[in-house]
Every structure is written in C-alpha cells, then in structure tokens.
C-alpha cells in the first residue's frame, strides 16, 4: 500500500511536533530532517494490508479528529506548531488506550529515523566508530 504525498506531509508535521527542530543544542534536527517519514512510508508500503491500513488510519485519525479532542476545529496540519504539540500531548495522555497508542506509534517510527541519524547519535553521546573492545576470536 502506498501513502499519498499529502499523507506524508501530515506525517512530517506530526513527527516534527513530537521531535521538533532546535530546542536543545545537542539535537538541532527535527524528525523530518532525518529519515523518519520514510520509516512510516516503508512500513505502510511493506506490511500486510490490514496493518498498513491501521497505520494510515492512525495518521488520518490524528489529522482529522485529533484536534477535536482538544476542542480545536481545525485540522492537525493547519494548526501552528505549538498547537500541534498540545494536541499530541493531550492524545498521549488520553484515557483511551487506542488514542494513546496512535501517538506512540507515530513517535516510535519517528524515533527509528531520528535515532539513527549521525547528528542525533553524536548529540546523545554515541561515539563513531563505536568505543568497543578489540578482542580476537578464540
């Protein structure tokens, strides 16, 4: 299943609300500055039909209904960055399990992309090449 360009744009805005640019000097990049959106796009492309459908449904739910849960009458992608963070933060703390899971899903995929970015890894303190021991095979 293939995601449409507008769905990828929505996804980028959701991921950037979770992992915004700047904020901490150690981590200047946002999620969409890395390969995070592609992670979700590939998940939708390569997972079985119903899984892919569920992933897309989560994106549509956040885009259309997410803001309503915070009493906002605009779509998620039309909100300003601060509003997007507030919507996702509220969903993340929702008493309804599936609403929390939707945000968690987007966050996990965002982290898969953001967390492997060399700049993020350096900011976190991962040395490259890794600081492992040299040990010969017995």
């Amino acid at each position, binding site marked *: 299943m293939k995601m449409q360009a507008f769905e990828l744009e929505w996804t980028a805005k959701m991921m950037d609300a979770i992992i915004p640019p700047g904020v901490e000097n150690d981590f200047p990049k946002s999620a969409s500055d890395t390969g995070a959106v592609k992670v979700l796009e590939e998940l939708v492309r390569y997972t079985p039909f119903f899984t892919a459908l569920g992933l897309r449904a989560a994106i549509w739910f956040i885009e259309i209904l997410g803001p309503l849960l915070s009493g906002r009458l605009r779509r998620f992608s039309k909100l300003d960055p601060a509003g997007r963070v507030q919507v996702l933060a509220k969903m993340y703390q929702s008493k309804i399990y599936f609403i929390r899971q939707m945000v968690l899903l987007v966050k996990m995929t965002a982290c*898969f992309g953001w967390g492997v970015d060399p700049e993020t890894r350096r900011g976190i303190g991962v040395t490259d090449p890794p600081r492992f021991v040299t040990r010969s095979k017995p």
Partner: protein
Amino acid sequence: MSGNYIGRVWDRAANGAIVADADYVVIGTGPSGATAAKVLTEAGHEVAMLEEGRWVRAEEFDGSSFTAQKKCYRELGTVAAMGKNMIPIIQGRCVGGGSVINAAIIWRMPRDVFERWVRDFQLSDALAWKEMEAAFDLLESDLNVRPVAPEVMGRHNALLLEGANKLGLESRIIPRNEKGCQGLAQCTSGCPIKAKQSTDLIYVPWALEKGARLYHSCRAERIQVETGRAVAVLARFEDPLTGEPRGTLTVRARKGIVVCASPIQTPCLLWRSGIGRSSGHLGKHFTGHPGAGLICIYPDEVRLWEGATQGWDSEHFRKEWKVKFEALGMHPDLLTSRIPGIGAEFKKNVLDAKRMGNVGCAMVSQAEGRVRPMGKNAYVSFSVSDEDVFNLRRGLKKIAEIMVAAGAESIVPNIFGLPAKIGKDQLKLFDDAPLDPQCYTMVMTHMFGTCRINPDPKKGVVGPDFQVHDTKGVFILDSSIFPTNLGVNPQHTIMAVAQVGAKKIASQ
C-alpha cells in the same frame, strides 16, 4: 553467507517452477529447523530446507533497528497479539530465524518445568532428561557458549549485577552463544561482525556442507497429503519484503516433512493443509513471555549502547512471582522511543539518554491465546491474565529496587497512571499502579503452544514420536509443541528438543 554452496541454494525458480525431492523437507531454519536439518543430514538423509525469509549477510547490518526489521523481522516487526491490549510479537523471518535477532541468551531448560511436562502431559516417552542434558552439552560446545567476558560486559549490565547482589537476589552474568563479541549492543539488529553464533552461521552451513539444499525467500503454502500421509510441500518463491513472485517450488518428501516454522506459522500451515485439526487443539494454547521494560537514570554515564546487549539476568522470582528480569542494552533509535514526552519536553528528556539503564520484566504468562490463519498471515488472539499483570507490577517494582540499589536516582516507569519520572524514594507508587494491561507497553518475544505434544490424540496435536497424530509423515519440532512456557529464554531448550526429536525421526 560463507562457503561455496553453488547448486544447493536457491532464492527463485529461474524457469518459473522447481520440482525436487528429498528424504526430509525441513520447513524453517531458525533454532529448531537448523538443528533438525543438521541432525538429519548427519544421519545420512537427504534434506531440503525451506525458509520464508532471506539469507541476510552480516555486511547488511548497519546498526539500524529498522534496517534489521525490513530484512529479518516478520512483517517488519508489526506482528501483534490482539486482546485486552495490543502486544507486538517479535519474530525473525530470515535464514537463522530468531537466532539472528535475539541476544544470544542461553538457559538450560529448568528441571522443574521438564518434570511438570513429564508429569502433567505424559511426555516420558518423548523426552528423557539425560537426552536433554546430552543435547545441551553438545549445543554449548557447537555454539561456543560462555558467560559474557568482563571487557564486553558494559556498565549497564555490571551495575545491575551489583544492585542485585546488594539486595541478596540470585542473578547471573549471562552465558551466550558468541565468538568474538565486541560489545556493540546490536544483537537485536543483527550482529555485523558474525560474533553471535546464530544458526545461519553454524548449523545451516553445516547441513549445506554435508549435502543439504536450501530454498530461501520461499514460503511453504501447503503440505500435500495422499491417503493419510504427507508426500510433498508446495511452496512459492517471493521477495520477502515486496512480495514480488519468483516462481514455485514443489518438494516431494520420501520420508517425512519436519515443520519448524514457529508457534504462529506452524499451526497456520497445518490448518491450511487440513492437518492436525482432529485433535481440537490446533492453534490453541498459545502462550509466551510477554513483558514490559523499566528505564532508570543513573548519576553518571552508563551508555546503554556499549557492552553486551543482554549481559545480566535474574530468575530469582521465576517460580514464585512468575517473572524474569533481564538487562537490555539498546541504541538511540530504540531507546528514544521509550523516553517520555512530546516536543521540547521529549528533547529535554533525551539529554539524559547516556545516563539511562534499562531492564525488561518478562512474565511467565498464565494466559492462553489462539492462532488462526488470516490470508498469508496469522491472527493471534491473546490477553494477559489479571494474575500476569499483578506479577508484572510487582516485578517492575523489584527491578526499580535493584536499579536504586545499583545507584539509580530516578525511574521512568512507562506505566500510564504513574508520573513520567519518579524519584528513588517514591518506589511505593508502584503499589498503586493500575492493573489494567492497557496501562503497560508490552512486547512478546518467546512463543509456545498451538501444536502441543501429548500421547493422547484427543489432548494434543503431536504424539511422543513428534509426528502429527492424524497425518503420517508430518513431524513438528519447534516450540509450538511445548505444552507450557519455560520461564527462561527458550532458544537452548528449543534446539535441545529439536536435537532429541530429530534423532528419533532419523532413526525411524
């Protein structure tokens, strides 16, 4: 991939279809399938191995979890058990199966579990403890099993050992199947230096060198049965990621078909083939070790991405509380997804990443679920029991106590209903954590049941000769035949049972 296996390894049918035959067809190349193939080949039988996933080379592992998920995990890691909560199920799908993506933890089967199997499920004709011990000895030699060396222990493992010792809890430095581990903490995303002695590096090449054949990227669709006896496997080559078709395979089995496809795929294959249903137990009794993790923050750097992925564990509470604890190192792509917060708050929390420790609490679940085929895939229904969640909660509290004894300043519980971060003096908050499974972020890594073994055809799918009761020539050697879960990491027991079972099959 190493060695010269030209003419013995296929990932497609160049002319659209391959028709072949063998004494035994082994479906699956994970811990059980590879062991079975090795034993049967050594006994002089002609063996054809079928594997749904690819043969992934170590050079393809770049340390990214998502890369590994695309290449080695079933459905890119999105398989989940559906019930009161959604529990992702981690399954390998590549040559080597789960052994490629696990953390190489070796546990001999607990003697009390074995005795329960013999007593409650009448397995004395199928398995003898002496045979199991001999199998463990052989496997430990073949797979170079040894405790984590001090130089690759990693601080996160060492601290937990210290914390458990302070509390007087039994725990250990984990023995692992590895040769030359450099402490990259990349076990779950594939070892890039071939240190982990997974079955794609050990038993699959052994079998190939002794004349076996391997068909990978090849999904077994159905077992063909004629007059009550299985005679062939009908399979389809396809790109494991994209599903692009690459031809068909028919392998006729002169002596038997050994199914080692996992407790999720094995019952589905049997179901689609009309095999094993007469018992009324096919696909039932699915269980495992679902678990949840706890993060702590130490005053100094711990660097979860350095050292053995899993170098410390404890089964102190396995019998009483039905939980097991294990350290779990990870790289930032996985770790950050467990760090609380959205937006600026999340990024601020990530600043603590290098001081974080992480421990998983695996439940010896008392619940049972069910597996049914759903198209090419499977539907798994499973809900943890109330007792499981109670055990999980007290297990997590004990882990927090170990972390604090090891010097942790605060705990990140990742439990909905508790604060995002709690101080080391606030551990009593765990006592009030909700007992709703939806409040925990769980994952399941070890699966059992669904084709349970029992001498009575009304009580099990497989008999003590490891043959399906209602169809001659179909044998099952994976953990789908296990009548209960183990409470410890199962690879070693799975391989030992496969070793014992394959020897019996080979001598028939």
